[in-house]
């Protein structure tokens, strides 16, 4: 579980366009090896590793070593802090529908 104070880390991690593209590529792939992520990315494997480290520290990706390779996938819940505002309104409107229903029952009989 990531704490609320990790919000800043999530935002900072995704503010960098290269890192954001990398995160989206991992999301698209489901799971991807570092070598495959480096291939065609236009950045060195060292730079890719640094970006992965930042994403991992922000709780956005998880790694799985297999033999000499390391695979990365998107970490469940990592984006939850960004969706909080939407969640807030999702709950808000459903509650309000309930209140609207009760009000109509009262005034329109």
């Amino acid at each position, binding site marked *: 579980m990531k704490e609320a104070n990790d919000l800043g880390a999530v935002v900072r991690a995704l503010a960098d366009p290269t890192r954001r593209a990398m995160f989206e590529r991992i999301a698209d792939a489901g799971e991807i090896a570092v070598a495959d992520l480096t291939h065609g990315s236009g950045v060195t494997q060292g730079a890719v590793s640094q970006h992965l480290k930042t994403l991992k520290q922000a709780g956005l990706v998880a790694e799985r070593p297999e033999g000499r390779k390391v695979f990365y996938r998107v970490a469940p819940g990592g984006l939850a802090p*960004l969706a909080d*505002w939407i969640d807030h309104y999702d709950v808000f409107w459903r509650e309000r529908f309930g209140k609207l*229903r009760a009000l109509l029952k009262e005034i329109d009989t």
Partner: protein
Amino acid sequence: MSNAAIEQDTTHDIVVDEVFPHAPEAIWTALTSGDLIGRWLMPPTGFEPVEGNRFTFKTTPAGPWDGTIHCEVLEVRPQKRFAYAWKGGHEANVGYGAKLDTIVTWLLSKVDGGTRVRLVHSGFVLPLNETAFSNMGAGWKKVVPRLGEIASEI
């Protein structure tokens, strides 16, 4: 923010769609009368159901945001469609209280035994493409267990 980054952003809509056992006229009144809005949504300040009218709601502040929602009536088509801008939040906030430039649209249509009420709250900007979010799953889907709690209260 660069243009490339803006192009990568995506927006998300919240949709709630339910059938009410009431005529469109009754629902329209509940949606567009200031006193009644105060009883099911929040008390509005300065509200008139007239296109171009500006009004506000007061909600919980967060960080540099004072909690005021600034609204403007955009469309009034009696018993059919009612839309208002819904703006608030602050750039310095993340999550609750983040900057918001959205539109709330109510769509009413007559159905057997009542009225279908469709709410679309559109324009939530997500700083990632949709694939990243949908593959992610956990974001707003974590709300589902909470919906069960709310439904049981209604």
